[in-house]
């Protein structure tokens, strides 16, 4: 379902952030991208989501050449298929919990009642119903993390991308996150997690680990 084929990413200063990357991920798999900071994990995720383009090679998702999609189509592709969980939460501070959760669907032409329904279900699932109208900057770290996951699910994506999801969480919240991740996997989502957090490495529901080092897969 997701294929990287001879992918190189070279930055302006002739720096190879990725060098001849090849891998394949099947539907419903949970894959870890492992490696030290600077090894190229985030670069892979950004190529996968169409946020940037490879210097050469192909990125194919659902039989679509993401690497060749014009910018606007890449956005529509993300809106339709991808849920993002960022390391720094990346919530919009001056908006409420609910507003943040529905942000991905604001430009869509989905009916408001449907968006509302989905949002209510997610608020309930992540136990933040009471905080519906609170500004996200007033939430605790754990609550913010749950808003981020809810936002990643509002468009009912088939692929979930998480970049260092536990880097800003304490042990307890990280464990909670792993439980959420397990549930998502059980729902059939395809999940790619970039991390160097040891908590992830002896989980029994991991399908594949891609070990990175300095832009190459070991």
């Amino acid at each position, binding site marked *: 379902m997701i294929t990287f084929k001879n992918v190189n990413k070279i930055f302006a200063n002739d720096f190879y952030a990725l060098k001849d990357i090849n891998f394949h991920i099947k539907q419903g798999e949970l894959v870890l991208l492992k490696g030290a900071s600077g090894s190229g994990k*985030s*670069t892979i*995720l*950004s190529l996968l*989501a169409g*946020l*940037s*383009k490879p210097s050469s090679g192909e990125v194919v998702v659902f039989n679509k050449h993401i690497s060749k999609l014009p*910018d*606007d189509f890449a*956005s*529509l*592709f*993300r*809106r*339709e298929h*991808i849920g*993002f969980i*960022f*390391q720094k939460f*990346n919530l*919009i501070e001056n908006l409420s919990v609910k507003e943040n959760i529905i*942000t*991905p669907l*604001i*430009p869509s032409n989905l009916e408001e009642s449907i968006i509302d329904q989905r949002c209510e279900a997610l608020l309930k699932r992540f136990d933040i119903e009471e905080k519906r109208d609170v500004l996200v900057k007033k939430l605790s770290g754990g609550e913010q993390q749950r808003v981020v996951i809810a*936002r990643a699910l509002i*468009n009912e994506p088939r692929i979930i991308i998480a*970049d260092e999801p536990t880097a800003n969480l304490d042990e307890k919240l990280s464990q909670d996150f792993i439980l959420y991740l397990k549930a998502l996997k059980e729902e059939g989502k395809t999940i790619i997690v970039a991390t160097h957090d040891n908590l992830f490495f002896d989980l029994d529901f991991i399908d594949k680990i891609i070990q990175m080092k300095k832009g190459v897969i070991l």
Partner: protein
Amino acid sequence: MLDINGVQSVIPRYWGYYYFANAGVNFSVVGVDIYDKAYSKTLDNLLQTPKLDKEGMVVGKGVREIFNQNYYNEYFNFVKSDGSLKRVDVIGVFDTNTNLESNDMIFMPKELVKEIFDMQTNYATDIVLEVPNKNEIPSIISKIKQIYPDSRVITQDDIRVSYQNIFDYKSGLFLSLFVIAIFTFFIIIYDRASGLSSHEKREIGILKALGWRIDDILAWKFYEAFIISFSAFLIALITSLFYVYILQAPLLRDIFSGYSILKPSFELPFTLDFGMLSIIFFLSVPIYLAAIIIPSWKIASSDVDEVIR
């Protein structure tokens, strides 16, 4: 003077400043032929309640207020040079729209003016000559100087020049204030246009990662910037209206109206110049919008993958 070639008519004028000691202000008293058809018609148009049926004076609004403060409601007692009093009835008040010009004015029949200022029968304050042919003016001036060596001749052009000078100085002051304001505005615009804050960039990046297209982001930015700049425009408009009409333009008013302390205080007539307003609008709101939209567009259409680093 009528004998001088080229002079069409000679009109004596009777006017002067009357100092009202109780209030410490000057009134400009002007003598007119109220019953002269030409005058009364124009006067009628300028009056609040047009009716000039008896002998008396027409006064500006400022004069009227000062009269009232000193308990003169229907009439006023002018003190003549020999100390005796001359009572003149108020028969009309100038319309508020003429306030800037008429505020300190008193119009009355010229006979009354001569009596109050104790002018001799065949004297006048000044004399207006009407010369249809502009080219004859210099030679007429020199002839007048020959006949009346102590006279001072002022042409319409002289008056225009002296007004021009006053307004040049005043408009120069306003121009510099205006230039400062414009300059400040463009510094802000430059600051906005020369790059968004990292916070704003990040926000655009987040939205793009969440599946917003460039158009979606720009539409939202446009909406946001429009609300900001339009409300700034409205606030500025309301503040300036408040400053001018409620506070009566402190500081600027003195610059504009000159030696106003000696004159009755006046209220600024309300005017709203929609041409000017739309110029200000189109110079501010769209420029601000452009200064937001263009850099936003640049950011949104480049790679925004920093958000996931």
